[in-house]
């Protein structure tokens, strides 16, 4: 991982050296987890019972156990088996950071799939019927009608998940990843001052603030029709179309 300050002049620069790890862990697990979550949400809504059961079981297991257990299971647990040590996966599972990314990804997949499922289920069935009536195939229907609306609906919930994941990356410090949390803890142990922990907290707050702003901006971009109503321009009266 890159080092921002080779010779940190103060505690701020020292903690900032852990920033690349925090961001890498959060970004990679969120990106990977999002795609897996869309797949898992589709499995959960699939008409085939075993697929549904699998998705339900996966979400249940990962949401009912602490992330720390999942991290330790993958990092310490898998390495104990010779079969794993001899497999092609070992170069990855040997490294703490790949284990951390794997655990964080699997964890966020479970939570995100529930958020996306809520979004998918919020799309009115009439629209699916209308799309069918227009002759759209399954793929086209999903891409043009269902998914765009589901994402818009799921975005506020997903924003929370992003913040939770940024916070969760701090658990990677328990398996030797030198992120902001571990650097701050080591510095505190060495100097008996809790200043480094406060500085790390400030960094996390700043990242989370930026992340929530980013999500709000995306939300704004994705919902032009709500924006128009907000600026005071009146939409033409559409009768009971908007009845809820």
């Amino acid at each position: 991982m890159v080092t921002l300050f080779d010779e940190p002049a103060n505690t701020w620069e020292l903690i900032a050296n852990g920033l690349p790890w925090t961001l890498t862990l959060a970004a990679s697990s969120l990106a990977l987890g999002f795609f897996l979550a869309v797949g898992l949400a589709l499995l959960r809504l699939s008409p085939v019972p075993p697929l549904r059961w699998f998705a339900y079981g996966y979400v249940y297991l990962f949401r009912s156990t602490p992330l720390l257990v999942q991290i330790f299971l993958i990092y310490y647990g898998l390495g104990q088996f010779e079969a794993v040590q001899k497999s092609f996966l070992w170069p990855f599972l040997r490294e703490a950071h790949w284990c951390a990314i794997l655990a964080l990804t699997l964890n966020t997949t479970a939570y995100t799939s529930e958020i996306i499922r809520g979004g998918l289920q919020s799309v009115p069935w009439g629209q699916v019927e209308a799309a069918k009536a227009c002759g759209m195939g399954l793929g086209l229907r999903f891409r043009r009608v269902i998914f765009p609306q589901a994402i818009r609906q799921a975005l506020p919930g997903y924003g929370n998940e992003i913040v939770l994941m940024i916070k969760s990356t701090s658990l990677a410090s328990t398996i030797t990843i030198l992120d902001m949390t571990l650097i701050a803890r080591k510095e505190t142990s060495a100097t008996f001052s809790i200043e480094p922990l406060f500085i790390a907290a400030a960094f996390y707050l700043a990242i989370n603030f930026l992340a929530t702003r980013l999500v709000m901006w995306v939300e704004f971009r994705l919902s032009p029709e709500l924006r128009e109503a907000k600026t005071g321009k009146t939409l033409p009266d559409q009768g009971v179309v908007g009845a809820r």
Partner: protein
Amino acid sequence: MLEWMSLLAWGDSGWSDEMVRGAGWTLLVAVISFALGIVIGAGGAAVKLSRVPFVPLLGDLYTTLVRGIPDLITIYIIFFGGGQAAMAVAKLFGYDGYIEFDALTTGVLALGFISGAYSTEVIRGAVLAVPKGQIEAAKACGMSRWTRFHRILVPQVARYALPGLGNVWQLTLKDTSLISVVGLTEIMRQAFVASGSTKQPMVFFVTAAVLYLALTSLSNKVFNRVEIVANRGVRRA
């Protein structure tokens, strides 16, 4: 498989009894912190709903901080800084001795502080869900502030807050695993110790996962039951 069985034997030769004792500590920390969190949450909600200028900002500051800072950092701050802060306060009262928080105190303070922020939001929402007309009606009946509070507000807020508090409980229960970093021998710490001395981490972390699964599932059932009992007087469509 047989090897696993003997590792998990009950008594001196195996680790089952230690793991279950760990689960007991987990449950204890979770219950005390959750209760502390509700007390803090009630206060936090009162602060957030206060009509005194700038006071609600204090509540916002509290919830924003907790929700933006990793729980692990909060725990470390209380672990490393709690004793210092307590000593500073004690000095004001003329006590010069050394104070250090043990793992249980650290855990309960940290988790109570964290779950308090989430409970604040839940309770605030529940208070806002009570129709204003009811308070006005109670005033019109000549009820005093206290009577209004404990007869009209509290019973309904408790009912509205239950589902949200159930979520906070699940969160707190899982968060107890983080307390292992300060050395409290709850489930995680016990699993870590056991796998260190037997070199069989898989068994013990799977056992830990099963114990957490059991705790979350069982407590979920309890909460559902309590919700049914609390809502028995409510007519539903």
